[in-house]
């Protein structure tokens, strides 16, 4: 399966007076739980330990988020956050992928995308990132 990067441009800041732009490895997927389905963007985050989704996605899927199994984790800023894990299905490039993903319950501002991490995603897919060619390739590992 091949995907394109998304270009994101940032306004000027002290560190980047002319602004900056980057190519973000986000892909469009669908998430299913029960009979509900939601199409969203997902960031291929090889630095994330597991798959995490913002609270709003869980609410749209009708999931009682705090009824899941709880774990704590730290983000890049060092703060501790809580996630509740539930079994969901990701539809990626037409394939169903079952995953135990955590829903982040409290955040200052909710993420606009899902995070696909090592446990539950990259342990099942070989990913090849080629920014120069604007190409992301995912191959399922049998």
């Amino acid at each position: 399966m091949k995907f394109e990067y998304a270009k994101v441009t940032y306004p000027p800041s002290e560190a980047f007076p002319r602004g900056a732009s980057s190519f973000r490895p986000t892909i469009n997927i669908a998430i299913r739980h029960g009979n509900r389905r939601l199409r969203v963007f997902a960031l291929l985050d090889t630095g994330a330990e597991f798959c995490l989704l913002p609270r709003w996605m869980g609410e749209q899927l009708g999931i009682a988020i705090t009824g899941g199994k709880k774990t704590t984790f730290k983000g890049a800023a060092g703060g501790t956050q809580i996630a509740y894990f539930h079994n969901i299905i990701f539809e990626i490039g037409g394939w169903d992928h079952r995953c135990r993903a955590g829903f982040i319950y409290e955040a200052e501002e909710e993420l606009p995308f899902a995070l696909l991490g090592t446990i539950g995603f990259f342990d099942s897919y070989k990913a090849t990132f080629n920014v120069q060619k604007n190409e992301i390739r995912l191959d399922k590992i049998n």
Partner: protein
Amino acid sequence: MRVAKKKPYIDMTKALAGFEGKWVALSFKEGQIVVSGSGDSIGEAIAKASEKGENDPIVMKVPSQLMAYIV
């Protein structure tokens, strides 16, 4: 050295400009992302997209301020 020609990319910033803090329902048109519906709630964005014939949009809450994510 031959440099590979870069394929067109999805320009997320261009598509989402003016929708900061809003819910959006997105569609792909000619390889680019376009906003099919927007609103103060996810339901409103989906309903507006549906009025335009988009019944399976990608949904997103656009951040109130564009900035880099280190997650």
